[in-house]
């Protein structure tokens, strides 16, 4: 039980992140697609800072150059049925 | 282990002796006086405004350490509850021939009872001496901060700073 979960929502461990980086992921978008870190219900609020630190340290990039994964609308959890328009 | 408030959270002997908020030994003999244990430059000056006798000076910038003028300070204690850092105390070294009175801010439940005998601790919370609760004061202006006055053996007037918390 000694895994270290970095992305709490998608249960992505530090080991899995480091393996993906070793396999060639160098940006946050790639890491997200490779490991799902940041794709969970909280949309990266809990893990993106930690993942950015791991990515910067493992690849030697300056933290200033490691930008978060793209943010897309909606940036807050919202129920799908809120988008259903009643017919005018 | 390194000494000093930056490493332990407790002002060291040296920091206290060079602290402008603490008066010299003669002033302690003369009567009650405030003790402002503020040894770090932080942006804060409510103590300066609180003193009705203009005895506390911070000036500008507000990160200056508060300086206490022992002559102007009457030991009224109004400043104790106005310090956001709870760093102001009051001591009356010659309360009696053998005892001193130490007042400190106290924000725990329950407040002690006047007349109770309590275990008193120093800046690290460790037990120093037993003592009697002489006064327990709280008013609207203190906004939730109680001031407790305890009678202690005279030699501990610059050590006792709280009531020990039972673990």
């Amino acid at each position, binding site marked *: *039980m*000694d*895994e*270290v*979960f970095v992305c*709490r929502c998608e249960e992505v461990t530090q080991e899995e992140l480091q393996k993906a980086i070793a396999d060639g992921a160098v940006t946050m978008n790639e890491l997200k697609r490779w490991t799902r870190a940041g794709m969970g219900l909280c*949309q990266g*609020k*809990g*893990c993106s800072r*930690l993942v950015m630190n791991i990515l910067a340290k493992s690849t030697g990039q300056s*933290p200033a150059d490691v930008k*978060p994964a793209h*943010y897309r*609308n*909606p*940036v*807050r*959890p*919202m129920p799908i*049925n*809120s*988008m259903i328009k009643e017919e005018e | 282990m*390194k000494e000093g*408030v*930056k*490493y332990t*959270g*407790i*002002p060291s002997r040296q920091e206290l002796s060079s602290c402008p908020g603490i008066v010299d030994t003669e002033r302690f003999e003369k009567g009650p006086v405030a003790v402002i*244990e*503020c*040894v*770090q*430059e*932080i*942006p*804060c*000056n*409510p103590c300066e*405004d*609180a003193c009705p006798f203009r005895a506390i000076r911070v000036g500008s*910038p*507000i*990160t200056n350490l508060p300086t206490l003028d022992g002559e102007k300070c009457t030991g009224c204690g109004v400043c104790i509850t106005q*310090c*956001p*850092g*709870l*760093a102001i105390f009051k001591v009356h070294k010659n309360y009696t021939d053998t005892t001193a009175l130490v007042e400190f801010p106290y924000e*725990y*439940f329950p407040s002690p009872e006047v007349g109770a005998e309590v275990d008193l601790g120093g*800046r*690290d*919370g460790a037990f120093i001496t037993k003592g009697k609760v002489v006064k327990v004061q709280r008013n609207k202006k203190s*906004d939730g901060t109680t001031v407790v006055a305890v009678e202690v053996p005279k030699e501990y007037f610059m050590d006792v700073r*709280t009531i*020990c*918390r039972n*673990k």
Partner: protein
Amino acid sequence: MKRKVQSVVIGAGPAGLAAAIEIAKAGGQVVLIDENSKPGGQLFKQIHKFFGSREHRAGVRGYNIGIQLLEETKELGVEVLLDSPVYGIYKEEDGLLVSYVREGKEEAIIAEKVILAAGGMENAIAFPGSTLPGVMGAGCAQTMINVHRVLPGEKVVMVGSGNVGLIVSYQLLQAGAQVLALVEAAPSIGGYGVHAAKIRRAGVPIKVSHTIKRVIGTTEVEAVEIVQLDEKFNPIPGTEEILEADTVCLAVGLSPMTELAWLAGCNFTYEPALGGHIPVHDENMETSVPGVYVAGDIAGVEEASTAMEEGRLAGIAAAEALGCYTEDEAKALKQQVWARLDALRTGPFGQARFDAKKHILDVAKGGK
């Protein structure tokens, strides 16, 4: 047809409330939107007396400042939309489109000026057992004990000696919990000495150059193993110690909540002293996207006092841009706010933030 207003403030914490107040005071039309059911942001869990000087309302407890700000917004008739999470912001030709959910339905409003005051979020750290129930942010514990008046646990280990770690340890004691230890990875205490002194007087040990090695428990925290670190922050074998704690609070800094600024297309600059990637803004708190302002922790993680002042600054600047103030009137008001802001950012604790803010202004002027 979408509703059009002069200005929208997103986030009703100290910065957002202050911004809305300043726009309303100037006679501008402002709609204040917040996702929570109560305004005030993190103010209502801050039961300690604030620092600064009288103009910063020093010596007043955080939640009382919150009450005062809410009264001001009521007196000025600021329209406040609660329970309305903003999920999107777009530049359109006739203004900035702010879309949010209200009473289960999607709604949108077009504004000439938008002030982003979304605040910040507590950082996490990862270690074996860090996801067990009982491990939480120090701000989370603070919300539970001071706002909801429930104890999240009884025996706490606090991680981090910044002001949040020190203050929340003290407030846990006031709420009746025990704080077994405060561990700090760095060799010195990060927050104010006076806050550290309060918990040392209460017998709480502050262990610098220490951190958590792992948390033990099957369905929740049962014990915590801490370890000493050398000057390169590596654990020193043999210095492990088990503490019988049922709760771990993490006070390891905050990060700005910048999603809306990224969506709006703002430029960013990396400022570690202010919590990471920060939207570039000028001395009017206006970002690289005309009409979009930032204030409070989203513009750099500091304190509620600076958040309120930045909110005032953004509010005055937005009101000026809406034509409610002449340039001279606004200049005078802004100078007063800048003076109060500079006062809060002086001294050894404020210097790093002062320099970072100055750097942001340089970047806004085209510097690197």
